[in-house]
Structures are given as C-alpha cells and as structure tokens.
C-alpha cells in the first residue's frame, strides 16, 4: 500500500514538474509565446476566421508592421460586425495559423476599398492603429471573434510583417508553481516509496488529566515500527540524597512524580550488560 502510494505520488509529481517546466520554458518570464515577424504577401487586407481564435481567456498580441511609415490598423471584433464590414472587399482569409507559423488561407475576391475607415467604427472590441506599426494586445473574449489587419486611408498592406504572441494570464508564475509543486510531490513520493518516516515518532504523549492538566502523565512508549529505530525509555528517580533509582512508568504515574529533565541518548554504544 505504502509503495503504491509513493509510486503514484512520484508519477504525478514528475508529470506535473515536466508540464510546468515545459510551459515555463515555452512562455518565458514575460508569459508569452512569440512567433514572428513573418512576411505576409498581400496588398488587400487580412482577416481571420472565427476558428482561428477558438479559445477564450487567452492573451493575444498581434503586431502588424508596414514599411515607409504607412498607416495600419489591427482590430478584434465580433464576427458579425467584421464579416459585414469586410464582406464585400478583396481580402485574405486566414483559416489557421499553425505552430509556430504555418498559415493556411484563401484569397477572396471583392471590391478594392472598405466602405468606411476602420478607425471610425465603434464596435471593435479592441483596436490599435499606427504609422508603420500597430500593436494589438488583448484577451480573447467568450464570443465569436475575428482579427482584421487593415490599411488606413490610401495606403495598402504591401510589405506587411506580422508577429504573434500568445499568453496565459500569469502563465509564467503558474507554470513555475506547477514545476515546483511537481518536484515537491516527486520528492515526497520517493520518501513514501522508500518508507522514510515523514515525522519523528513521539516518545512521550500527553494524556488528558482532568485533575491537573499542566502535569504530564507518563505513558507507555509507542511501539516502534519493525524497521524503525527502537527506543527505550527509562525513568530515573533522584532522591533527596542525590541517589538515582530506576523506576517503571507505572510507579512514576502512581506516585504523581513530575518529569523534570529529559535526557536523550542517541546511538550511544552501550557495552553489553552495562546499564545506561
């Protein structure tokens, strides 16, 4: 039973530590898995399908960069809004990103221009625009959303480079915690498996004594496990003359003697036949 418990704890600990270690290494201290910059060849606009962003609570960073300080816009919006907005426009629709970067996409034909500037719309859940670069940093909500990378004004997206980062809120701290917890469990499993006592066996225990709670009662020594160190308790009464008498625990308890000093002798070699 003890062996199986120890083994199970060890396995759980190793798995947890491995997982925590892997995630810690993947995310790094900033809690982000970053890929890019990657070149995207298009002069129209880029939109993801909802299936690309099918997790909620994930932190997402999208950095879109354009040469020559061209204005660029990155926005996250509900799919109903984004689809209606870009639906009539020529665009690249990203079906999947791949890990770390193996995008699949299709080109959809349509008009050259959007009906309105993206910066004038009020339904973006998160959006950023900038000259030469736009950096969107957001947490994916629990609704069907799409990311759009759009040109602003007369500019186009020629020369677009995209960097992505995924993160878990407090991911580094949690993965590090999992690593340490896993290591602790693994160590605990080893100790349990090998039968190492996890705490010292008490030589004296306190018994309830309604008459005098402060006074310790003498109890019989707890029997030690077969494979543990055997302990022997000896009670010595010192009389008025300073003479020491060995008494039993029952005698000490019956006379109401008080234990005034405890002397522990560990692993002291005792000559055969000589009393300690």
């Amino acid at each position, binding site marked *: 039973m003890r062996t199986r418990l120890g083994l199970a704890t060890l396995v759980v600990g190793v798995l947890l530590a491995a997982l925590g270690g892997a995630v810690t290494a993947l995310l790094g201290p900033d809690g982000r898995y970053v890929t890019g910059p990657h070149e995207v060849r298009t002069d129209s606009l880029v939109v993801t399908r909802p299936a690309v962003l099918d997790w909620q609570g994930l932190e997402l960073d999208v950095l879109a960069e354009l040469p020559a300080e061209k204005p660029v816009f990155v926005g996250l919006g509900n799919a*109903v809004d984004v689809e*209606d*907005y870009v639906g009539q426009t020529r665009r690249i629709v990203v079906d999947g990103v791949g890990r770390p970067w193996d995008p699949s996409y299709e080109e959809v034909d349509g008009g050259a221009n959007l*009906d309105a500037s993206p910066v004038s719309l009020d339904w973006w859940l998160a959006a950023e625009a900038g000259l030469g670069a736009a950096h969107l940093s957001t947490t*994916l909500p*629990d609704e*069907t959303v799409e990311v759009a990378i759009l040109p602003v004004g007369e500019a186009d997206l020629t020369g677009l480079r995209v960097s992505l980062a995924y993160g878990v809120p407090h991911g580094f701290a949690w993965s590090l915690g999992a690593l340490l917890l896993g290591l602790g469990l693994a160590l605990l499993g080893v100790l349990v498996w090998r039968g190492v006592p996890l705490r010292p066996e008490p030589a004296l225990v306190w018994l309830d004594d309604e008459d005098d709670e402060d006074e310790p009662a003498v109890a019989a020594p707890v029997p030690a496990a077969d494979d543990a160190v055997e302990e022997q308790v000896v009670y010595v009464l010192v009389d008025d003359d300073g003479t020491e008498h060995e008494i039993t625990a029952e005698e000490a308890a019956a006379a109401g003697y008080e234990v005034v000093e405890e002397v522990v002798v560990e692993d002291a070699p005792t000559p055969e036949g000589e009393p300690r």
Partner: protein
Amino acid sequence: MRRPLLVLLAATLLLSACTVPRPKGDQAAEKVAATPADARRALAQYEEVLSVAAEALDAKPLAAVEAGSMLDIDTGTFEVAQQLQQKGEQRSEDLRILDVHAPMRNAYPLWFVMPVDDPGRDRVRVQVWRRERAAEPWKLVAAPETVGDADLPELVEGEQGTVVVAGREKPSRLGLSPQEAADTYAAALAGREAPEAQLIVPDAFVEQMWTTAESNGRLAGVRFRQEWRAENVDVALRTRDGGSLVLATLSRRDTYRVAAGRQVTWPGGSPQQAFLDGGGISSSGTLRYAHQVLLLVPGDGSPVVALGQLGGVTGADVR
C-alpha cells in the same frame, strides 16, 4: 493544521481555473444587437445632431442619424417649420432611457427598441434604432409616442438579457402574425365599415382618420380617395402572453380630384398648406403621409391595440 492548507490549495486551484484559457463552445457568429452603452451613445449623438438641425431649421444633418419613415416625417416637419418660419418643437433636455430591448442577431441589419421618457412632454417615445451595415452608424427609424397611459407589455427574454424576435409565422392558432396585424390595421383605417375594423380596437387615432376621410369625402365638387398600405414589418418582439409587439409603418395617400372652379384649402400654418406652398389643390393633387404605429397583438386572438403612434406629411404632388 493540514485541513486549512488543503482548503487553501483547493481554493487557489479553483480560482486559477477561472483565468485559465479554455476552448470556446459554440462558434456560431451572433451578437447582442446593442448594449445599453451603445444605446446611450446613439441617443446622445442623435440629440446633438438634432439640436444643430433644429437651430438651423435644416433637415439635412438628420440624414446622418435618421432613416426611413422617421427621416421622412422629420424632414416634412422641418420643411413646414422652414416655410412657416417657426422654430421646431421644444425639446426636453433630460430624456430618460427606460429600457433597452435588443435581440440576438447573426447578421446585419441590427436593431433595438428603446422606450425613452420625455418628461417635458409627458410622453414615452418608443424609439426603434437600426444599423443597416457595420460601416454605418445607428439611425433612428421610428419613435411612436405612447397613447394616453398605455403600458408596454412584458417581453419574452432570451439569452444574455436579450428579447425574442417575433417571426413571420402566427404565434398561435388564434393570434395574428406581425405582418397580418399590420395589414389588418391598415385595412381597418380605410373606413369603419371595413371588415378588418372588427379586428382592431378603435382608438382616438383611428377615429380621427375615419372622421377626416368621411369629411373629405363629403366635400362638394371633390372626389376624395384615401389609401392605406402597411410596409413590410421587420421589427416585432414576442410578448409573454404569446402575442407580439409590432412596429408597423403605414403609408397613406390622400388624393383629391377637384371640379373646375373649386379649390381645396387647409388652415394657415398647417403642414398640408406648407407642402402645397401656401396654396391649395384646385385640379388634382395627392398628399403623402407616413404613420408609425406600435401595435400590441394579443396571443389569444383579441383585437389589435395601438399603443403608440407618430405620423406626418411627407410630400405632396399637385397638378
């Protein structure tokens, strides 16, 4: 000692689970048509544009915040005010949004219904806002005013606090579909002898329309014809009694054919006179009206009740 530690560990894990990313469920594209913040923003922008237009007695800015029959009615109102050199009606500064009824939508156009209390006029306007495209702003398309002390019915609630749209089908064996209700109401307005008049509750508006038509029909030397038509209904909400709350837009055409030597005129300062450039109709002419009617269609087959109404002259053709 161990128990509190275990509880702490369990609580920490549970709390951490709340922030751990997880796959989304259904990936169907849908959204709540508008949040209360969207509604507040739309109303604030509308009031701003309306005050500019009212100050200049110019209806052109309204096209940015109004559409459909609402724009037609307000444009007509502004044209009348412009010709008569009258200031627009006094607007209340402290409009109060009573509620925002927004359905779940999976495509544009989006719309929502918003009762707004206008304490200055002691009326509730049931505003209907519509966003035709994602690239366009919210526009006010209807704002019927409640009649008397009419209360809006309780609406069926959907997920995330939304309201449920009443479809084109009949809600029950007895009740009318939204489009049937609108068509019935329009047909009933044609005259008190119309068979459909039995299917509606004749309120003050209906009585006024009947009386006006009868008066015009009695004009000597004038052939008068009044036509009512209900436009397609696309705003209707399911009510808890199994019926529906329907916004019906009705178009009305009053045609006058006047015998030689006679003329039909209207009182000075009336919208009709303003649309007729201060004159009357001496040969033949048509006045066009738009009416927005908020209909309560009971689920048990009871007569249709108009809870609110707004209308006005939208144009005139004179030969």
